[in-house]
């Protein structure tokens, strides 16, 4: 059952693309039309993800491999950026706080900014750039070279093997990376605090933990699952349905990053609204 349906969806999407590209004189190239067609086909893609993710067999090996590639391999980059952000944020905030005579609040203020906002968003953007473009380009080049077709012909569901595993990995690896980046960022902040001044690690971290509330951490971690899901979804979608030409690979990678990053901001905006409503 599922297979037939999914094939129809697949070819429907292809046809949508062809109509848009090859006969502009028949279908006026309206931006709205393009936008809604894109949204519709992304919605179908998303629904298909949820359908296939619950249906066995599960691609555990590929999921593990992707999680390793997506998560573990991003650690150095995330660590460097996290550390620098923590360090710079601390150095930059000190003069302002000093003006109000509240330099002692420096660790707490930096910690709240990092954990609530800067850690998740910066890490997600880095993630969109590194992982999103990687997935987009990989799937697009598999599409161009007919590898995806070859999987289908040999009766191995390419959607399950390629798309589902990557979206899941992105969804679950990004939160871990964010927590890691937050930790490294706080260490960067500790270094920053100690450039001008002398605060022991114990004092620094106990001050941070006193100032942090559950309400800071919890929503910040929850939203990163959505960031990861959105980045994975858009990257796989753009790759899986890329144009069959070498230029399609570059386009897929590019729009995976652009749209992925945009989604991060949109979700962030929604998240802040939702949290403020829930907390009142």
């Amino acid at each position, binding site marked *: 059952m599922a297979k037939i349906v999914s094939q129809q969806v697949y070819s429907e999407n292809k046809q949508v693309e062809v109509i848009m590209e090859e006969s502009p004189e028949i279908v006026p190239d309206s931006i709205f039309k393009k936008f809604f067609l894109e949204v519709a086909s992304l919605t179908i893609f998303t629904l298909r993800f949820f359908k296939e993710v619950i249906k066995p067999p599960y691609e555990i090996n590929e999921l593990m491999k992707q999680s390793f590639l997506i998560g573990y391999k991003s650690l150095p980059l995330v660590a460097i950026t996290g550390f620098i952000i923590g360090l710079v944020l601390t150095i930059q905030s000190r003069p302002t706080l000093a003006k109000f005579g509240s330099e002692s609040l420096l660790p707490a203020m930096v910690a709240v900014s990092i954990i609530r906002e800067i850690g998740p968003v910066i890490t997600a953007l880095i993630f969109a750039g590194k992982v999103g473009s990687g997935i987009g380009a990989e799937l697009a080049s*598999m599409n161009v*070279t007919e590898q995806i077709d070859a999987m289908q*012909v040999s009766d191995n569901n390419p959607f399950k093997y390629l798309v589902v595993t990557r979206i899941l990995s992105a969804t679950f690896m990004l939160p871990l990376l964010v927590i890691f980046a937050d930790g490294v960022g706080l260490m960067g902040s500790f270094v920053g605090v100690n450039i001008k001044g002398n605060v022991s690690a114990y004092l620094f971290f106990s001050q941070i933990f006193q100032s942090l509330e559950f309400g800071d951490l919890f929503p910040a971690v929850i939203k990163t699952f959505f960031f990861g899901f959105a980045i994975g979804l858009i990257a796989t979608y753009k790759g899986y349905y890329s144009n069959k030409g070498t230029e399609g690979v570059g386009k897929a990678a590019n729009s995976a990053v652009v749209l992925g990053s945009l989604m991060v901001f949109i979700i962030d905006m929604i998240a802040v609204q939702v949290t403020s409503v829930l907390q009142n």
Partner: protein
Amino acid sequence: MTQNATDIDLKAETDYKPNGNVVIKMEHLKKSFGNNHVLRDINLVINKGENLAILGQSGTGKSVLIKCIVGLVEIDDGKLLIYGKNISELKDKELIETQKKVGFLFQSGALYDSMTVRENLEFPLRKQLSSIPKEELESIVKEALHDVGLDEAIDKTPSELSGGMRKRLGLARTLILKPEIMLYDEPTTGLDPITSKEISNLILEVQKKYNTTSVIITHDIECTRLTANRIIVLKEGVCAAEGTFAELEKSADPWIRSFFE
């Protein structure tokens, strides 16, 4: 076995007689992409055991035609029967069972470049992997590589292989599922004449060994001469001509003759 394929010089059995066993039948098959009407009215019969070559200019829809057979492209209208079963009426399970009997060699080889040669060959078997003992899997993979003369390459990656070797590996990967019908999409395009001839002979060897029915899309007239029992020329979405090599070579239509020059 294939190292000296050039000297073997197998010949297609030109005295092949249709035995009335139809494996694939197309009736008024149509396929368009937007307003690009690729296949307008295809009527075609493929008999068991024959080698059918499909000729036609680039972009006439030869690839689309055989992709319809494996379900990569969905037909708009008309009938497509595989072993007498109408594909568009089949339920999921039966459809998969039917299409499993058809192997497809992609024009580009479609090798999985993130995997080794061994993994490429194991991939189609993934579903059965748990039920096949390790030694048996090893021997299946080795035999598939031996069939196409690639014994040495088992631990290489596709990027280390030459054009001809990539085609062979693609063929081995397709054969590992023991298809009864083989579809070749331009198997010799982009290869030098000697390698092309080796691949043509390989197609014949495969056909002998596994008793397959073959559909070969090609521009390569030498490959057609070596392999085909029957030729169909595709033009503007319909079958413009049909016959044996000898018949079409002497065709009254200069356009058709031009393929054979």
